[in-house]
């Protein structure tokens, strides 16, 4: 009945439309056309709600009551605050790109051999060749978060990585203030290169962020991607990671998610060449009334690839966790090996976990499986530890650490693992 009728726009939808009209005005004609098309993708359906299958458990329309104004240009004070916040990570890698409130900050950047960084804003004005790499990673343009990012993102970085010896790039994203910011990052990894990408999200304020990271991985390259999401607890965090893998690639992505009031992390992984392997993993920790959503889409479009997904969620208070994972095996993708597992630990009576692991398979010679569990800490194990003189709280912490630790074990970069473990421990001692 209602589907044919133009829906009534919410305040946030109206505000987004107005913000977009103002935003596009100064842009060149070609850019306006591209962004109009992107905004139209968003506008036709509006903010997704629980009747939209993909957003069933994360009702963005209800969660996003208002659309914050776009971030102002960074003041020196904001940059200084960002600098202090990022200092906690020390020197994680040879190269660093810093993006504050959605804007690239040249002063905080660090260059390295084999890493070419072009600020997106600059590329847009010069209509650089690199722009062609935007939107090539396989993320669906109709997805709400993707559509909004396509429409609004005016800064970020375009990166080309070519080194054959392992090179690390730290992508530090920081937010200060009550604004909306859109960031676009595209990393093109040359054939045969070996790279580490470390993405950190920090900040304070009640902002709305929309980050899209696209990784295009050339033949035979090795890529390890890490993401620490430790944004302010008042944030609405929409994030998209889209990776497209050519043949013979080894790709991994590991995330620790503990920030934001509502976070939706979407991962779109596409196998475009044969004999590639991907490992995706993540730990989400939430308390209070926070809401953390991880949504995966793994597209096995070609034969002979393997993917592994391993996700852990720990919830307390009235927190809500969501895991949706879909493995698609297309008709030609014979000899696919896909294994997905998502486990949730509920520490309080009123926490809620919603799981939807999905398999859609059209090829017959495959081995695919998924598993999902949700439950409380095993009383018997707890008793065992307590019987040995370990106090209850400590015993619980031990067990949660072991539960989440499985994902961290796979992290090859020692510095990153230390940061993840410490950050998770920090959450455990406060459970917020």
């Amino acid at each position: 009945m209602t589907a044919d009728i133009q829906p009534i726009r919410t305040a946030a939808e109206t505000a987004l439309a107005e913000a977009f009209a103002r935003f596009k005005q100064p842009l060149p004609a070609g850019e306006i056309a591209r962004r109009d098309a992107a905004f139209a993708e968003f506008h036709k359906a509006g903010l997704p709600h629980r009747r939209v299958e993909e957003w069933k458990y994360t009702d963005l329309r209800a969660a996003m009551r208002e659309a914050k104004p776009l971030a102002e240009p960074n003041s020196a004070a904001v940059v200084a605050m960002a600098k202090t916040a990022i200092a906690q990570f020390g020197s994680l890698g040879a190269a660093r790109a810093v993006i504050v409130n959605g804007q690239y900050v040249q002063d905080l950047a660090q260059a390295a051999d084999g890493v070419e960084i072009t600020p997106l804003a600059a590329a847009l004005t010069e209509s650089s060749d690199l722009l062609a790499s935007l939107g090539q990673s396989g993320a669906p343009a109709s997805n709400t978060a993707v559509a909004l990012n396509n429409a609004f993102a005016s800064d970020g970085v375009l990166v080309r990585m070519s080194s054959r010896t392992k090179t690390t790039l730290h992508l530090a994203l920081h937010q200060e203030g009550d604004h909306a910011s859109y960031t676009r990052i595209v990393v093109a990894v040359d054939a045969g290169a070996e790279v580490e990408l470390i993405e950190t999200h920090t900040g304070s304020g009640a902002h709305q962020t929309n980050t899209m990271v696209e990784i295009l991985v050339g033949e035979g390259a090795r890529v390890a991607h890490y993401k620490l999401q430790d944004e302010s607890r008042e944030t609405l965090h929409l994030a998209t990671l889209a990776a497209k893998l050519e043949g013979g690639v080894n790709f991994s992505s590991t995330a620790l998610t503990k920030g934001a009031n509502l976070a939706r992390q979407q991962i779109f992984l596409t196998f475009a060449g044969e004999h590639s392997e991907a490992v995706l993993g993540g730990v989400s920790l939430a308390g209070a009334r926070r809401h953390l959503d991880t949504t995966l889409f793994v597209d096995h479009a070609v034969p002979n690839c393997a993917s592994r997904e391993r996700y852990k969620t720990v919830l307390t208070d009235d927190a809500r966790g969501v895991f949706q994972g879909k493995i698609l095996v297309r008709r030609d993708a014979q000899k696919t090996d896909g294994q997905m597992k998502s486990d949730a630990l509920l520490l309080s009576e009123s926490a809620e976990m919603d799981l939807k692991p999905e398999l859609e398979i059209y090829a017959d010679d495959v081995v695919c499986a998924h598993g999902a569990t949700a439950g409380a800490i095993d009383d018997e194990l707890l008793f065992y530890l307590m019987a040995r003189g370990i106090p209850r709280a400590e015993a619980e912490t031990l067990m949660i650490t072991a539960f989440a630790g499985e994902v961290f074990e796979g992290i090859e970069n020692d510095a990153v693992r230390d940061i993840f473990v410490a950050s998770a421990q920090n959450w455990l001692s406060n459970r917020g």
Partner: protein
Amino acid sequence: MPAVQETVERVRQIDVDQYKYGFVTDIETEKAPQGLSEEIVRFISARKEEPEWMLEWRLDAYRRWLTMREPTWAKVDYPKINYDELYYYAAPKNFVAPKSLDDVDPELLRTYEKLGIPLREQEMLAGVEGAGSRVAVDAVFDSVSVATTFKKELAAAGVIFMPISEAIREYPELVRKYLGSVVPVTDNFFATLNSAVFSDGSFVYVPKGVRCPMELSTYFRINERNTGQFERTLIIADEGSYVSYLEGCTAPQRDENQLHAAVVELIALDNAEIKYSTVQNWYPGDVEGKGGIYNFVTKRGDCRGRKAKISWTQVETGSAITWKYPSCILRGDESQGEFYSIAISNGRQQVDSGTKMIHLGKNTTSKIISKGIAAGKSENTYRGLVSAHRKATNARNFTNCDSLLIGDQCGAHTVPYIEAKTSTAIFEHEATTSKIAEDQLFYCQQRGLSEEEAIALIVNGFVKEVLQHLPMEFAVEAQKLISISLEGSVG
């Protein structure tokens, strides 16, 4: 294993026509005028000599249905159904409820004989070894129930087993109390349509503390062209009772699609147990996907009392499209729900089936075992929900769904929804998809089995876990069906 041997022989026997129930009974029928309107609803109600409240109930449903839309979320694809082209009521001409089998049209009796469903009690006794395995049958032909067997013996035990149309007249207070209490009139598009136009089906009431002395069974047959079948089944197991109910269905082979939109409601009170088994073998359409039944069914059981138990077992081999989710509402504390399913699709069949286990009471448990087998150019989807509400402390679920793909033109999908709203719930879900291992096939073939025989053997092993839960009479039939359904899937 003799049963498996039988399957292999069965495959050998059948050569050309896979669907052996595709014949048409040549019998004069009386149909309601084409299309759906308030008049048709009144016509059906009048034909069934229903009381006023029943007519009102139907009309309410009909009015509601007019405002509803056909659901589109299932992974099935079919041309739009024109509900005005269907006939909503068909009955053998001059049909009056028969007093005994001698009054039943011999043509009808022959039909059921041909289907292997003996309606004469003495024949059943003669045909089945051992006195313990008698089955009482309610035979539904298009829109009417033609015969119900063993009524007397069941009545002696206090069990009411009769066509629902008769129950509405004879036990209105029971029907009124429970009808629509599990699947509300407004539940979904097809259930609401059913509520408006349902014609027949079975009604079972097992009184307190009675263990139903035999298996109850309903056999559904669609015969008439262009008619939809809208059966309605209501089973109530009072405190401490037990009943096992079987359901079978077939239809003639026709080029056009026919609609079957049934509603089944089960109610189990304190300590009661209902075991509901289905072998669904509606005409699946031909290899090119022409014809076949659209099977859009709402089945739901309500464990209303403490320690109630409802168990669904289904073997789905027929229908062009299956849209079916037998569910359990685990309302009573310590109640149990079970779902065992084998869904086989071949040719161009589309199956979207699964279950819902809704945990509301404390210490409730549920178990889901689903085996999907896709062959030919078919699509086979498992879609299921397991949820525990805030107060459902210590809810426990185990789910296992495995899919098997035979050939590279089919699809197998798994879409589970798991919602835990309490930390004390323990939910486990696992699913796998694979094909028949080359080495298994090789091993069987090397011992002299043909490829088809080998596949039948391996598939039987794959589904064994579910077959075990079928009553004996059905298990044998189901095993045969599995081998027949997969016929022609090789090469």
